[in-house]
C-alpha cells in the first residue's frame, strides 16, 4: 500500500508542529519508491503524462527501432545481374552504398519482439532469351532477405528464418536433372520478379519480356521467440533464373535453378532499392 492515510484535523483540535510535520513526512514515506497502481486512477496514464525518450520515439515501449535505406541511380542505368550457369551465385543488390540496413552496436530482438521489413526494387530492364524446354517456362528472378546476427563486421550473412538459399541439390531422375533450388514453403523473405511470359500462339512459342521500368515490392515479418537475437545488418540478394517446378513424382512445389542451363544472355538491370525495417514490442 502506498496511500497516505492519516487522520484529518477536526473542530477543536490544536494544530501543533508535530501534527504538521507528520502530514508532510507521510508524503515523504509514500514517495520513497512506493508509488504504484494504488496511486493512479483508471485511465490516469496518457501520452502527456509519460516520460518519453527525448526527441526519439524509439522509447522501447512500443517502437524499439526504425530504419530505412535508399539507393538508386535512376531509370536508364543501374546494375546488371545475369543468369549464371551455376547455382548459388546470388549477388547482393548493391548500387554503391545505402542498400543495407545496419546496426553498428547490434540491435536486440527479444522474445515476442516483431521484426517488420519492407522493400521495393526498381527494375530498369530485362534481356530475355528464347527457350523451348518446358521446364524453363515462366522463369523469374528471386530476391530474398538476409541478415547478419554474428557481428558488425557484416561478414556472416545468412538467410532470415523461414527463408532458404535455393541451393539444395535435387537428383530426382527426371528432367531437369541435377537441379538446385528450394521448396516454396521456405520463401518467407522472397520476392519474385517475373522475367518473361511464355505462351503458344498458333503453335509458335513466344517469350515476351515482362514490363520493365517498374517497381516490385516484397516484405518479411518475424515474431521472435526464444532467446534474444542480436541483429547487425539486413540486405537483399538476387539470383536467377529460377523456374517453378512440380511433377507427378516430384510433388513438392519448388523453385529450381537448372544446373545445366548454359544460356547466359538473360539478365536484369536493377536501378534502385528502398528498404524499411521496424522493430516493435509484440506484447
Amino acid at each position: 500500500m502506498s496511500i497516505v492515510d492519516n487522520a484529518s484535523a477536526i473542530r477543536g483540535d490544536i494544530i501543533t508542529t508535530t501534527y504538521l510535520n507528520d502530514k508532510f513526512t507521510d508524503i515523504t514515506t509514500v514517495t520513497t519508491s512506493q508509488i504504484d497502481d494504488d496511486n493512479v486512477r483508471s485511465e490516469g496514464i496518457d501520452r502527456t503524462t509519460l516520460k518519453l525518450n527525448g526527441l526519439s520515439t524509439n522509447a522501447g515501449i512500443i517502437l524499439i527501432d526504425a530504419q530505412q535505406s535508399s539507393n538508386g541511380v535512376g531509370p536508364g542505368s543501374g546494375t546488371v545481374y545475369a543468369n549464371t550457369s551455376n547455382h548459388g551465385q546470388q549477388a547482393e543488390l548493391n548500387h554503391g552504398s545505402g542498400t543495407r540496413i545496419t546496426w553498428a552496436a547490434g540491435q536486440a530482438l527479444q522474445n515476442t519482439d516483431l521484426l517488420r521489413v519492407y522493400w521495393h526494387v526498381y527494375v530498369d530492364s530485362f534481356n530475355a532469351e528464347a527457350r523451348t524446354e518446358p521446364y524453363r517456362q515462366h522463369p523469374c528472378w528471386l530476391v530474398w532477405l538476409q541478415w547478419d546476427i554474428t557481428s558488425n563486421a557484416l561478414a556472416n550473412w545468412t538467410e532470415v528464418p523461414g527463408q532458404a538459399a535455393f541451393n539444395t541439390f535435387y537428383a530426382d531422375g527426371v528432367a531437369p536433372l541435377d537441379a538446385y533450388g528450394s521448396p516454396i514453403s521456405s520463401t518467407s523473405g522472397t520476392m519474385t520478379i517475373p522475367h518473361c511470359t511464355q505462351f503458344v500462339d498458333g503453335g509458335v512459342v513466344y517469350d515476351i519480356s515482362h514490363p520493365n521500368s517498374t517497381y516490385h515490392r516484397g516484405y518479411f515479418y518475424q515474431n521472435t521467440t526464444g532467446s534474444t537475437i542480436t541483429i547487425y545488418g539486413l540486405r537483399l540478394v538476387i539470383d536467377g533464373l529460377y523456374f517453378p517446378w512440380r511433377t507427378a513424382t516430384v510433388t513438392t512445389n519448388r523453385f529450381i535453378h537448372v544446373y545445366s542451363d548454359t544460356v547466359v544472355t538473360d539478365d536484369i538491370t536493377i536501378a534502385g532499392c528502398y528498404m524499411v525495417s521496424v522493430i516493435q514490442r509484440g506484447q
Partner: protein
Amino acid sequence: MAYTPTKVWSASDAIDAQDMLDNLDGIKNYLNKIPDAALASGQWVNTNHIMKGFYEPTINCATFVSGVVGGKVFNYNNTDYTYATGYNTLRKGTASPYVHVPKSAIDFEITSPSTILYHYWMCPLTPNNDDASLGHTDIFIWKGNISNPQSITRARSVEEDVATAHLAEWENIYFLSGTHLVTGLSVGTYHMGLGALSTTAKTSVIAWGYSAQVFCM
C-alpha cells in the same frame, strides 16, 4: 527521489502561513513531475490505467496513447475514380506534372516526437500514347506539399503491338505499392498525401489506398 518538505517545524517554531504555502507548493511541483525513483519497481501498470483509445469512423482512424493507426481504400466500385495524366491541363509540359490523388491527404497532429510508417498503393491504367516512346506512371508520397515527393514507385505502359498481335504484350494495368518511413518528427502539424505523375494521355486510376501507423512511444 522522495518528496522533501521545504519546512520542518521544530517544537519552538511559530506556524507560519508562508511556510505552509511553501510546503504545499513543493508537493504540487513534485506531483507535476514525479521522479523515476519514486515509482515502485516491477510492473504495476495494468490496462485499466491506460487512457482508452478512440476510433473516428469518418477518417477510419484509431488513436491510442501509443500512437495512431488508420487508412482508407478507394476503388471504382465505390465510384472513386480519378485521372493522373497531365494532358489537357496546365501541367502538361511542366517539368513535374504532379497531380493530387483525391482524398489521400492527411494532416498529422503530432503531440509528441513520432515516427510514421506509411504504406500506399494504386492501380493505374497507363495505355500507351501510340507513339515511339513508352510512357509511365509514378505514384509517390509527398510531405508538406506535392512538390516534395518522397518514396516513389513507378509503372510503365507497354505498347500494344498490333503488328505482331500478341495480346500478352498489352499489359498496362499494374499494381503499384510502396512503403515510406518518416522518423524524428517533432511536435507539430505535418501534411502528407499521395501524388501521381503520368507521361501518357489516358492514365486513369481505378483504385488506390494508404495506411499510416504513427508510433509515439
